[in-house]
């Protein structure tokens, strides 16, 4: 799961998807594709975007939510805490000799 997280973050398209979901959570695939192509100039097919979303979902960074006929993608930043807990010291930089 943690390896999936690093793999998911290693790609610029996937980081862009996370940036766009940070701006507004709960997006359809259509909105994500529109944002990537018009606002970010990423030139890729809907299928390619779906595959990137699947990688993000496997890493737990994106969750999909169905409401009747609607399907939305939400951002989940909780897995990023693994990174913070692994390397960031809680006592801060000034607490050390």
């Amino acid at each position: 799961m943690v390896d999936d997280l690093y793999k998911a973050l290693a790609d610029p398209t996937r980081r862009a998807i996370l940036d766009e979901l940070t701006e507004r959570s709960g997006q359809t695939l259509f909105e994500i594709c529109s944002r990537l192509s018009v606002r970010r100039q990423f030139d890729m097919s809907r299928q390619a975007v779906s595959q990137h979303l699947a990688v993000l979902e496997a890493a737990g960074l994106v969750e999909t939510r169905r409401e009747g006929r609607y399907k939305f993608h939400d951002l989940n930043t909780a897995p990023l805490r693994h990174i913070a807990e692994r390397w960031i010291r809680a006592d801060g930089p000034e607490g050390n000799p």
Partner: protein
Amino acid sequence: MKIHLSSVFVDDQDEALRFYTEVLGFLKKTEVPLGEDRWLTVVSPEDPEGPELLLEPAGHPAVKPFRDALFEDGIPATAFAVRDVHAEFARLRGLGVRFTQEPLEMGPVTTAVLDDTCGNLIQIVAAA
């Protein structure tokens, strides 16, 4: 050549006529009985002689899987031009319309996507 007619598949023509006229604000243009269904079109009050939108029955078996797949991915069936997407979003949401995409500046245009309650997502668009 110019565009005379476009169409959307609707689950129920009566409900579609209500939504497209009372909520979206189009005008009924043509209503001709055709067996169980009707040739039912609406036009924009801003251009009553302009292109007509056919509210076409969705009974053909190919329609449901096609529309369900578009709907699931949030893809609009068609797009309508408005003067101000933010104002139209506020007006329609006040009438209980569900949006799957709130107004978003997308380069030269602003867009939003709403549920027409008849099986389709509709994009509204204006110059940004």
